[in-house]
């Protein structure tokens, strides 16, 4: 590579968040996890998907926060929601029957079949090397939403051949497993990282690199993946963040947790 390019004026994390926000269809009903998913969903509501319906597991349906909440239960979510329901109700009446279009999740570990681990790493369950927070709402979000989008930074530590613990099911051990388990949602359709975008192969269900973010090489993705990752024949490139997206995202980040 002899080509000289100016360093972009955005970070890999910003590219990831912007790419995730663009993956949300206007008007979709989205079950939002805290952290990167919440940032991306709130960005989408201010850019490409003003009609996005944000549902948080705290029971706030149709929240329209004017700043970025730190938790899934900040007061701003209840104040701006169309409806606030109890926690049993949000899971039983809204998530379980399949009323949610998109589940938006993060992961501590993710494997080639899109299974997610947020429970333990290393050792065994009783004596783990690292104890993580656990399941929360994720297993049923992964099971029941029409589709799941995962947003996570890509590294060999995170992208592993097999997760140490299946907290939330992607495609299990391969084709047919979701059906066998009776999972009614479509599973992970898009995995968005700081390097690019992966989608499950329609036949093998294995995550396949379908898009690189600008300036990223296939070699970098391979280096950051714990299995021999397949690359799509028609590998695309993500459009870089627009100045408007960056301005709105940076403003949003400044307001996190209500700080002005």
């Amino acid at each position, binding site marked *: 590579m002899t080509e000289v390019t100016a360093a972009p004026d955005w970070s890999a994390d910003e590219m990831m968040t912007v790419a995730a926000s663009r993956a949300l269809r206007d008007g979709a009903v989205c079950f939002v996890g805290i952290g990167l998913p919440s940032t991306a969903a709130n960005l989408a509501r201010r850019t490409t998907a003003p009609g996005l319906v944000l549902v948080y597991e705290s029971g706030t349906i149709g929240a329209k926060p004017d700043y970025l909440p730190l938790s899934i239960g900040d007061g701003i979510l209840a104040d701006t929601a169309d409806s606030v329901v109890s926690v049993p109700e949000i*899971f039983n009446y809204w*998530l379980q029957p399949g009323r949610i279009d998109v589940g938006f999740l993060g992961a501590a570990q993710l494997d080639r079949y899109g299974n997610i681990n947020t429970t333990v790493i290393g050792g065994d*369950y009783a004596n783990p090397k690292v104890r993580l927070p*656990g399941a929360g709402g994720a297993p*049923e979000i992964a099971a029941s939403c029409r589709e799941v989008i995962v947003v996570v930074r890509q590294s060999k530590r995170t992208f592993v051949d097999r997760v140490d613990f299946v907290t939330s099911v992607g495609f299990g051990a391969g084709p047919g497993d979701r059906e066998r388990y009776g999972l009614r949602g479509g599973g992970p359709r898009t995995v968005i990282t700081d390097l690019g975008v992966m989608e499950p192969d329609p036949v093998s269900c294995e995550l396949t690199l379908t898009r690189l973010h600008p300036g990223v090489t296939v070699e970098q993705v391979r280096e950051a993946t714990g299995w021999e990752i397949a690359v799509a024949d028609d590998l695309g490139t993500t459009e870089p963040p627009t100045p408007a997206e960056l301005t709105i995202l940076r403003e949003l980040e400044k307001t996190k947790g209500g700080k002005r």
Partner: protein
Amino acid sequence: MAEIVPLADAVSELVRDGDTVAMEGFTHLIPFAAGHEIIRQRRRDLTLVRMTPDVIYDQLIGAGCARKLVFSWGGNPGVGSLHRFRDAVQNSWPVPLEIEEHSHAGMANRYVAGAAGLPFAVLRGYTGTDLAEQTETIKPITCPFTGEVLTAVPALRPDVAVVHAQRADRDGNVQMWGITGVQKEAVLASSRSLVTVEEVVDTLEPLPGAVVLPSWVVTKVSVAPNGAHPSYAQGYSVRDNEYYQAWDAISRDRDSFQRWLDESVFATAASA
């Protein structure tokens, strides 16, 4: 009829060593003042039940009050890990901590079954996850009408539920609003209950969407203004997000946690 008593008296009467205690509040209305009083009274061998054992249970676990934790998500929301919880699971410090782990949907349904007087609840959940292998209180069940295989989880029946609410009247009727989580179910599922409130008022003005717990399902009410801090009480306070962020450093090592315990819990008396 609920009795209105000082918090220290309520805790000493209702929470006993070895009890199963459910302190609920989903981000909002978390009963921190009551939690600190339990630490202050040096309760031991508790089975702590809570969907999101966030900072409040990190404090109780670090203080050595717990023998077992029944939960579905143990993190510091929006910040990261719970270091005292981690230290207890990974290194048995200060005492070993047994865990019984579920998902949110499973825990919520366990409270619903407890509140409804049923032995178990049915849900679509856990299928294909490793949780189903590790947790004995997750079992498959076949629907007698359709033959479909679903998941059963047993009812939660805590000895005592502890929740925080905005207000109560002088008869001990309790009113809460905003994000009300699983508090109603936790109180109804438990043998005894303690509700801390921001204030006691003459009359509870009806509010749309509010949850009212009639006095006759509540055992004790204690006034604890700002008793949810660093969580919040809608209409009274906002979530102290900086406290949650600061907790990460305080809880990271045992010495700084001990200092926090001495200065912020043992050296102070219960409010009210």
